[in-house]
């Protein structure tokens, strides 16, 4: 905001000196689109690329990207929306898909509908659906969070396993390999944060369920997928194949520093992994391990987010135009962000591009994008509801207790009891 004011001040000074004609020109140059998003290796870098493409054709527009951590973006957004002060808000904000309906429903009128401008028929339908409220579509669908098992080939091989062993894993087998890796290399298998429910969500969705049923009602007790997810994490903790992590940055540092042998997460982490150039060739990608639940597959989703334009923005039209021009129409843009950042977009037309067929040298020449595209089509559809954060918190309270001997059934009972009060 400050710099926008500064630019306004500059143009005002210019006007005083050079007259009214220049004043109009100065105002036209003052169009700054402020964007809030997280992850410098991913969303921030991609928005920079999008901005560069847009400003080439529209030199009168400047894009200012503010890089926060995800919780900070969400909390600042929520505070800004609640205060009703437009100056406290950006023009474009990135919102994770789990939270989209929460914002749309709690702050009606705060986001600009894009239905009139954007042709949504070209996007993956599940992405469009989660940003639709009362017949209006509010966001620009962005990346998918299709998951994969990223692993260090050198550590796995040292433990006596091959890349072929990493395909079609069950979680039990994964833990077994983890023990072998520690015995042979001294490295742990995973970085694991017991205050993060991410792994719970990955496993649960791979088995086709969520915290909520299709109608949005709580589905904690009797949820076989959730039970399996907690079961796996109890085994991981009891087997001690993890290195405890505290918070996001610490968790990322576990695998970027080479301290652990594997990471199970969304495809958007590819950019962060590839940022460690000296580890080139050492990484492999496999489908995620499966659980023994009917209908469970080796594909899931974690995160994934979309861009939203604030209704209070004074450069609303430019912001919408930026999103529409680049994210809804520029297929070449999707090729670039896929290769550079590992962004699997949700614009269906982008999938046919050549980049999806390119082998990636960082991953030893594997055609990883073809794999991710294939897994993307296998993700079971679930209803994220509007209370994922609340139930996540209830789950995260129980996770450390599982490692200390609490039974999975007792954990589910406690999660259900906490969630029931939180979800209202």
């Amino acid at each position: 905001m400050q710099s926008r004011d500064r630019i306004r001040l500059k143009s005002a000074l210019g006007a005083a000196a050079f007259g009214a004609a220049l004043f109009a020109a100065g105002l036209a140059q003052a169009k700054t689109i402020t964007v809030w998003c997280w992850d410098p290796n991913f969303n921030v870098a991609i928005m920079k690329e999008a901005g560069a493409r847009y400003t080439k054709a529209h030199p009168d527009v400047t894009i200012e990207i503010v890089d926060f951590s995800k919780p900070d973006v969400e909390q600042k957004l929520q505070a800004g929306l609640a205060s009703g002060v437009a100056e406290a808000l950006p023009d474009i904000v990135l919102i994770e898909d789990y939270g989209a309906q929460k914002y749309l429903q709690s702050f009606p009128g705060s986001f600009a509908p894009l239905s009139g401008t954007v042709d949504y028929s070209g996007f993956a339908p599940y992405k469009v659906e989660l940003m639709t409220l009362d017949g209006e579509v509010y966001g620009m669908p962005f990346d998918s969070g299709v998951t994969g098992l990223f692993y260090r080939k050198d550590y796995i091989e040292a433990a006596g396993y091959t890349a072929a062993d990493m395909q079609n894993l069950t979680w039990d087998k994964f833990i077994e390999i983890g023990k072998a890796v520690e015995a042979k290399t001294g490295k742990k298998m995973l970085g694991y944060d017991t205050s993060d429910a991410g792994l719970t969500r990955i496993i649960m969705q791979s088995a086709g369920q969520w915290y909520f049923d299709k109608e949005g009602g709580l589905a904690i007790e009797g949820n076989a997928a959730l039970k399996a997810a907690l079961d796996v994490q109890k085994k991981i903790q009891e087997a001690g194949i993890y290195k405890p992590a505290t918070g996001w940055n610490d968790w990322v540092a576990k695998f970027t520093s080479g301290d652990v042998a594997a990471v199970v997460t969304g495809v958007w982490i590819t950019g962060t992994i590839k940022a460690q150039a000296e580890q080139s060739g050492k990484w492999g990608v496999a489908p995620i391990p499966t659980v023994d639940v009917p209908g469970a597959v080796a594909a899931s989703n974690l995160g994934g987010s979309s861009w939203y334009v604030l209704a209070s923005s004074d450069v609303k039209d430019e912001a919408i135009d930026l999103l529409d021009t680049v994210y809804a129409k520029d297929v070449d843009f999707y090729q670039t962000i896929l290769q550079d950042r590992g962004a699997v977009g949700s614009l269906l037309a982008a999938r046919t591009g050549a980049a999806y067929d390119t082998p990636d040298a960082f991953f030893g020449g594997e055609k990883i994008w073809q794999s991710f595209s294939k897994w993307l089509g296998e993700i079971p559809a679930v209803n994220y509801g509007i209370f994922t954060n609340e139930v996540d918190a209830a789950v995260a309270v129980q996770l450390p207790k599982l490692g200390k001997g609490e039974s999975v059934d007792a954990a589910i009972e406690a999660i259900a009891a906490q969630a029931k009060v939180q979800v209202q």
Partner: protein
Amino acid sequence: MSPRPGLRRYYDINGWSFVGPAVALILLFMAYPIVWSLWMSFQQGRGMRLSFAGFGNIIRLTQDPVFQLALGNTVLFFVVQVPIMLTLALFIAVLLDDPHLKFRGLLRTLIFLPCVMSLVVYSVLFKSMFLLDGIVNQTLLALAIVSEPIPWMSDPFWARVLLITAITWRWTGYNMIFYLAALQNIDKSIYEASRIDGVPSYARFFRLTVPMLKPVILFTTVTSTIGTLQLFDEARNIVASDTSAGTAGPGDSVLTLSVYIYNLTFRFMPNFGYAATVSYVIVVLVALLAFVQFYVARERDR
């Protein structure tokens, strides 16, 4: 000689125009929010869609295990931490009051110094110092005090120990200053007389110093209790997770009422009404505890 009625009104108008702006600002920024939050605590709803709910939020309090956990944690913190800190502060104050002590000024400054630090800055420092492979664990390992690194951040018990250590470090010096100031007001001749009468030093401390400091001890107890009840920055920054679950410490072990209010407002589906209700719980608790402490420490007529 009383001023004539006209003159008095003139003074009144002048007086009111001096205090008027301050009163208006206090009404606008203090009284109005307090009344409005009380009104909000009777409302329920998501985000800006609030509707009147009567005592619905209070009923919800009784059924909410997270609120009960937060309340339990908060009570635990002030029951354990406030006595530790105040005892420590009192002893340090008495030690530093000794006129034979060298470098008194320097030591006083050093012990008061943590208090000057911003809450967030010191929280972040503590966080990095107490990581699993942080400097504290490395030091403890190097000195062979522990054989395994202490899981400060991932074990509920140690997370609470860490939080109590941190607040004690930050606030002991602050309370010490009050005691030091009060010690200066005690007449030295009382000590002299008791020494001549052969009163041992521990008895001088418990029978003379402590009773004479009673008003200050009461004051620091009340302010420390209120401060601990409102504990937020440390719980939010030292051990809180930045994941979407956002638990404060492993298993919400350092979740305080203030952090819960924050979560209800900014992290979860925004529920301003219920958050206001929880904040009124703190108001009631502070009022009750202050009353109890004044009652216990009242001057008894003999």
